[in-house]
């Protein structure tokens, strides 16, 4: 195929395969595997280019660090009620103390880990379930597809939060593990739908037909060919599920259905409200944990939004063009009202 002189890397429509498994003598994983690696690389590039994505990643990394090494940052035991009660912020207590005499800063720092555990736990679990169900429905088709669809749709419609409240009430407070399980079990339906749609559109692609002709079994095709190609959508699903896990779990903790022995931002808010934090002059007890929830949620949401823009360039901010009321475009510099050029 004759092509014009293009500088290397300028166009990714070239026919050559990147050196990879084939060159290493490994069995080719098919179009899916290579596409998966390529899309991960593309994602990495896209993240650094997009401002929202960078902010999101930065926040997330910060929280993960705090969650992994809380002892490095806060030296007090968050549960210990050893200090004078209801102190305002000071040098010894950056955020003051609670009505029980606990150091608030320590609580916020140590409270990060349970939230992250729930976010990532539900994110992974719910996404895996959604993926299995969505892809199976798309790939198996027919009656299996129909049944799985109905199940997904019913779960979509049933109001999740009231259901979570009722389950939580029967359980008389849920520990972290139970909360992960329950939230994941009820919130996978939204992302399952999206994954099924994409899997459906992939069904008729050529590399899948090639696999079928090679005689690969269905499970193999699903795991090795389809799923790697859906990497970006899986990441988006993970982010969505993690975000809702953070919001749902904090809300459940706020109304007292969390584990009262675990310090997390949601439980802090529960105790704060029950002790009339505003009226007793401890506004930070409510403001700070809430801000943390917003920040972590924003990290997930910004990343998700950035992925949306990366996937659909039409949504990106339009730059440096003057737009008239009806959307007609004129470039703002020298080309307005062009005159007939007389060459000669």
């Amino acid at each position, binding site marked *: 195929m004759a092509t014009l002189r293009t500088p290397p890397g300028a166009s990714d429509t070239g026919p050559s395969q990147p050196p990879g498994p084939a060159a290493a003598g490994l069995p080719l994983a098919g179009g899916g595997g290579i596409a998966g690696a390529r899309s991960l690389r593309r994602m990495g590039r896209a993240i650094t280019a997009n401002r929202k994505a960078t902010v999101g990643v930065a926040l997330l990394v910060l929280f993960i660090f705090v969650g992994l090494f809380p002892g490095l940052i806060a030296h007090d035991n968050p549960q210990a009620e050893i200090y004078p009660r209801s102190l305002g912020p000071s040098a010894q207590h950056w955020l003051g103390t609670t009505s029980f005499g606990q150091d608030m800063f320590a609580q916020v720092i140590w409270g990060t880990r349970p939230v992250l555990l729930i976010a990532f736990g539900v994110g992974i679990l719910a996404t895996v379930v959604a993926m299995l169900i969505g892809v199976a429905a798309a790939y198996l088709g027919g009656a299996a597809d129909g049944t799985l669809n109905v199940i997904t749709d019913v779960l979509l419609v049933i109001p999740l939060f009231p259901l979570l409240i009722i389950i939580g009430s029967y359980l008389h407070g849920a520990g972290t593990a139970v909360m992960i399980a329950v939230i994941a079990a009820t919130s996978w339906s939204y992302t399952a739908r999206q994954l099924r749609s994409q899997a459906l559109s992939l069904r008729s692609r050529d590399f899948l037909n090639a696999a079928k002709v090679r005689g690969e079994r269905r499970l193999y095709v699903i795991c090795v060919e389809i799923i790697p190609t859906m990497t970006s959508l899986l990441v988006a699903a993970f982010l969505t599920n993690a975000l809702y896990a953070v919001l749902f779990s904090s809300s459940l903790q706020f109304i007292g259905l969390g584990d009262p022995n675990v310090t997390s931002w949601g439980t802090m808010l529960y105790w704060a409200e029950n002790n009339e934090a505003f009226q007793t002059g401890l506004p930070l007890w409510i403001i700070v944990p809430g801000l943390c929830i917003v920040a972590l949620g924003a990290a997930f949401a910004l990343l998700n939004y950035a992925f949306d823009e990366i996937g659909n360039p039409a949504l990106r901010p339009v730059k440096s063009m003057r737009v008239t009321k009806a959307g007609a475009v*004129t470039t703002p510099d020298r080309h307005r009202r062009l005159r007939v050029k007389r*060459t000669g």
Partner: protein
Amino acid sequence: MSSAPGEEVLSTGPAGSTGTMLEVHDLSVEYLMERGKVLAVDRVSFDLAAGEFVGIVGESGCGKSTLLFAIAQLLVPPATITGGSVIFKGRNMVGLTDTELAAVRWKDLSVVMQSAMNALNPVKSIQAQFADAMRAHGVTSKAEIADRSAEVLQMVGIDPVHLKSYPHQLSGGMRQRSMIAMAMLFTPDLVIMDEPTSALDVVAQRSLMVQIKELQDKLGFAIIFVTHDMSLVRHFSDRLIVMYGGVVAEYGLTNEVFESPMHPYSIGLMEAFPSIRGPKVPLTGIPGSPPNLAIIPPGCRFAARCPKVMARCEAEPPGLYRVDGRLVRCFLHEGERVQP
């Protein structure tokens, strides 16, 4: 027609034409993408007299549809006009706002798009879509709107009962014809058509072309017709523009271009379409694929695929030369240089 050297373009038209209605001069369109600019249309010039039928042919990606939308001032970001002028009935349309263009739109210049399924509003009835065009131009009487709507539908052979239908309720051919009927509402002077037959089967294509030609004979409007199918315009167009890689490769009277193509690309195109009556000849295509317009090659854009390529072609871009009343962009026909 002014004849200052360098500005003159072909001015021959069908017998009886009365002056130039449309003058496109050095029109350039770029797509401003994040990774750089793509020059989709590069200094294209041609003119059109009243009642003329000009065909623009080329393969996918050669810029013909972009050119068309640029002429009608219907580009959408990131595409923008970056140079040249479009003088329609004495007035340059480039740079005008939609409000300023509204007076001219549809009354003097209408558009027919490729797929009526996409070009017709799916949630409005045919009647409603005709009506809002008329109301936008001052026709308010319900009776007048109803009468005219029925009239144009009959012109294209559709029973006016279908005015109440929604686009998805009509067949493909009927949808396309209603789009043409809509373009006729104000009997404009110029109708721009972007591959209006591509979505139809061969038989419907032919019948639609005949219909279009009949309407033109009856109502006298000029047509710019974009297509990738040369055989369609062979019998209907007066003049032909062959585009390649965003530039004009050849431009002349349709018959002459078909009988004796000059540009190697045009030759390749003609040879790719077998004649139904002639002797059996082996089909030859044109090897290769269109150039990547993000990177403008230093020489001729067709050089990589040209069977007659010379060393000079890859180093230096050919200008547009006038030879025997034809404009050709090829060193093989170096004549009077009309455009660099």
